[in-house]
Structures are given as C-alpha cells and as structure tokens.
C-alpha cells in the first residue's frame, strides 16, 4: 500500500514536469518578489544598521530563504479539494481503498519535491549571485533546516486541507481560500518578519500555527535563533502538526456524514 502512496508522489512529480511552462513563469515571479522585497527593505533601512534585531544582510537572507521555502511548502491542496467536492469527483476517491486526505498530502508532497529540486535549488543559486545573501556554513544548520522545512510543508498542507474541506459545508469557499492565503503569507512572516509586528499581534501569533511555517525556521537558518534553541522550534512545529490533526479528523468525519455529491 505504501508503494501506492509513493506512486502518487511520483506521478504528481511527473505531471509537474509535463506542465513546465507554469514552472518557468513561477521562477520569474519568485525572482521579482524577492527583488521587490529586497529593494523595499533597502529603502526602509536607509542608513540604519539594524531594525527589530535584523541586520541588513540578515534581512536579505531572511527574504531570500523565506520565499524559497515558500516555493517548497506552497500548494493548492485547498483548491484541489474544494474543486473535487464541488464537481463531485470526490465520490470516485471514496470508492478506493485509501485515505483520501493522505493521498492529497502525497500529491502535495510530489509537487513540493518538484519545486524543491527544480525551483528552489537553482533559484537559490541565482538569488545568491544577484543579492548579497549569506548562507550558513554549519552543515548542522542546513540539516535541521531541512527537517523544519518538511514540517513547514506538513503544517501548511494541513491548513490547506482544512480550508478545502470547508467546501463540504458552504456552497462556495472561494473567499475563505483567499483569506487563508493572505493570512498564511502575512502571519507566517514571509511578507514581514513577525519581529516587526506590534507587540500585541506578535503575542497573538505565538498562539497560532502560522509562524511555525516560515518565521521560526527562517530565523534558525539566518542565525537569529541560535542552534541550541532549534530543538524547541522543531518541538513547536511537531506540536502544531499533531494539534492540527484533530480538527482535520473531526471535519472529515462531519463531512462524510453530510456529504452531498453534486451532479447525481
């Protein structure tokens, strides 16, 4: 059975390869984003050495790494699930002896793996050439960051799945999906590091899963969080991963009860 799940990763990977044009345009969009934020922060810093504890090189690295990480953990599982629910093809998924949500997760991972290898790695190389990005030299940081990145993917996908499943309960959850997207980008710290948030907001953020997606791992990678505290960041990610399983399970169970397959 496991080999079937692995096949879902493989097939999604191959499908991404087949639709390469999306991928080229994606690289350009990410390069523009990183460039835009780089120059924006340059302007904000002016001749100041550091803001909110970020030095200019740290900020540059933070932006580059956060956007590249986003390339990996980002996926459209919410939209895929919502579409399958709306057009009724979720029925076909339910006659198969596998867990629908696990299959979705695997497909998301296939997409992520594709982006990691063909997007993130070359992208990071290019970004390093253009902008003064300082990557860590300690292999332990790289290793622990990879593990954190995997958790980022898991948590972000869980949030996506939860958002997508709401299509069972409302006729159109398009608005909810858009809101989620903006929330994840803003609160995970991709757009603005959470250190820049007003005190009350960053206090709230500590109780939400978003910062575990980008802000905390990127802080470890840029060296703002020392390696010694990386364990607690990983622990927090693991806790959120576990905690999010419960609402997903409950939503799925409720959804199965009131599933109404559209189109006969």
């Amino acid at each position, binding site marked *: 059975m496991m080999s079937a799940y692995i096949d879902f990763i493989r097939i999604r990977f191959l499908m991404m390869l087949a639709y390469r044009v999306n991928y080229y345009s994606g690289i350009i969009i990410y390069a523009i984003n990183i460039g835009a934020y780089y120059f924006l922060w340059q302007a904000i810093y002016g001749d100041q050495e550091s803001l909110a504890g970020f030095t200019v090189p740290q900020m540059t690295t933070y932006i580059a790494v956060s956007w590249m990480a986003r390339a990996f953990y980002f996926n459209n599982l919410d939209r895929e699930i919502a579409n399958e629910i709306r057009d009724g093809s979720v029925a076909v998924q*339910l006659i198969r002896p596998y867990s629908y949500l696990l299959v979705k997760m695997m497909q998301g991972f296939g997409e992520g793996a594709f982006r990691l290898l063909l997007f993130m790695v070359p992208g990071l190389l290019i970004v390093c050439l253009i902008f003064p990005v300082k990557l860590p030299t300690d292999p332990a940081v790289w290793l622990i960051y990879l593990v954190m990145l995997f958790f980022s993917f898991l948590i972000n996908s869980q949030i996506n799945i939860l958002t997508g499943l709401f299509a069972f309960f409302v006729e159109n959850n398009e608005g909810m999906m858009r809101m989620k997207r903006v929330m994840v980008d803003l609160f995970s710290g991709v757009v603005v590091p959470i250190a820049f948030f007003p005190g009350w907001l960053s206090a709230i953020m500590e109780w939400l899963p978003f910062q575990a997606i980008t802000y905390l791992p990127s802080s470890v990678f840029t060296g703002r969080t020392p390696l010694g505290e990386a364990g607690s960041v990983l622990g927090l990610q693991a806790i959120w991963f576990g905690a999010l399983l419960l609402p997903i399970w409950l939503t799925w169970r409720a959804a199965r009860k009131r599933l109404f397959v559209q189109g006969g």
Partner: protein
Amino acid sequence: MLAIDVKDLRKDFRVQKNREGLSGALKDLFKREYREVRAVKDISFQIPQGEICGYIGENGAGKSTTIKMLTGILVPTAGELKVNGFVPYRDREKFVNGIGVVFGQRSQLWWDIGVIESFQLLRKVYRVPEAEFRKRLDNLVERLQLGDLLNRPVRKLSLGQRMRCELVASLLHNPSILFLDEPTIGLDIVVKTEIRDFLMQMNKEEGTTILLTTHDLQDIEALCSRVIMLDDGRVIYDGGLDELKTKWSKGREIQFQFAAQTPIGKLQMLTEGLEVSWTVENELTAKLFVPHEVSVSEAMARVVGGADIRDIKIFETNTDEIVRGIYQSGSADAEAAKKEVASS
C-alpha cells in the same frame, strides 16, 4: 449468501434555501434556511450473489443516491445496509476492496497519465500481486479489445474507448460485486452491445453480482433477470422482467396496410362489439389496438373479412412504453396505472 441486503434504507439531504432578491440574499448572509429533502424513503431489497439486477427510475428518483450508499460514499440517515458482509460506510477502506464501481458520467482514471499507468497505480492501490494483475489485465484487454489504447493518455480516448477502460479499471482487483451507474450513457450501439456481451459473459463465468442503473431499457432487457424500479425514493416494483412485461403490457397493436382507401368509420363498423380502438396513420394504413382480453384472431378475422389488405404487422408493447406508463402513473399498482394510461 446475499450480496446486498438493504432494509429500510433512508437518506435525507439538507438543502440550502436561497431566498429571493437582494433582501433575501442579505438575510441568507446572516441566517441560512435549510430544507430537508428525503431522497431515499425507507427502501428494502435483497440481491443474492451472482444476480444481475437492473435498478431503474426517472431522473431524481434516488437511484444514484442508493448506489452511493451501497458503495460507501454516502452515509445513510437511517436503516440497515450490508454489502458483501460489510457495512459500507463503516469499514469503507476494507469494504471497497471487494467491489468495483463504474460511474458513466465520471472518470476514475487519472486524466493526465497513460491508461496502463492508471492500471498500474490501481494495482498498487488494491495490492494486486504482479502476476495475477498481468493475467487479469491480459484477459480483460483481449475481451474488450483495448490492445493499442493502453499507452495513450486518458484525455485522448473517445468516450467508447474510455468506458471500456473504466470497466477494466473497476475489475482489476477481481471484485465480487460490480456497481454500474449508467455505464452505457452516450455510447454508440456497437460499444453498447460489446459492453453488454462482456458483462453477460463475466457474470456467467465468474459469478460476479452486478447492480446496474440505466435509462436505456435495452441494457436491462439484454442483461437483467430482475428489475427494481424506483419512483420518488420508493421501490415501486421488484421482480422479474418478464413478469413486469406480462403484468404491465396492455395488449398489442396490429398495423394494417390496405389496398384501397378505407375510412375509419368502416373499420370501426367491422370491429363493432369488440373492446378495441383504431388510429389512422395515413390514407392506406391504420393501427388497431387489441387489449389482452380480446382475442387477436377474432379481431383479425373481422378486419380481414371486410377489407382488402396488403400487409399486416403485429407489435408487442415494448418495455419502453411499459416503463413510461409506470413512470407517468408513479405507482406500482398495475390497475391504477392502467386506468391512468387509459384515461390520458
């Protein structure tokens, strides 16, 4: 052993009510109103192993909803349900290993990859051993003549080709029950016949139980020994197809072609005293409807004796007409339906 055992099965849906106009939309924004719709109303039936059973009814009669409960997709609101010894929605992942499902209007193959890759993926999903898979695939490919389609992506197949592939996909794990939801919809007569022959043969050789919904009554006539008819969420008929025909057919029609123009008044004179009726088709042909109570030979003798006849054809009431009659009356009660049809 029973393949399918259904008792007092019920399914309610909660449907959102959309209020009219801007004020209605605003009200909807804050307080939704719902309407309960009962799609399946306490139905019961049993299907023994190895039977091919037709499940028919008008659009919206609850056929698909029933199939979806039987396959574990939907959770019933009430009632008992046992398929292949499982309660479908409860042990879904285990249960679906023993069934095959084809939705005529929905593909279960992966759109972007080759047919054979879809099959390979299904092999892994259903954990079919490689050797067994090969044997079964070769057999199915030969019987459904899929040979050169296997390497094409699904999106490049015609509907007929796709449907044959869907059948193979649903049978790779050798299920003991096959659910077909409108499997021949939109197919040409050649493919339809091929699929019917294939299903018939499979049922005979492997004893696969088949439950099939369709709007094409020829499917039913070709395949099913038994029919369950549904109307407005209730079973209105459950029994043999022949029985249905004899019970419901009201008589036969005889078409006469005359040598010379024959006015209807004259024809009615000829059959005076018999409970029959005439309809004129054109100047030279007319149809005589003879109910079962009236002897055909007597009616014929009277007409033959009184008019110059070129040709005679006798039509049995076909299943289509019978079923249309039942749908219109919406009742399994043959007498009530007969009256209804007669008065309309």
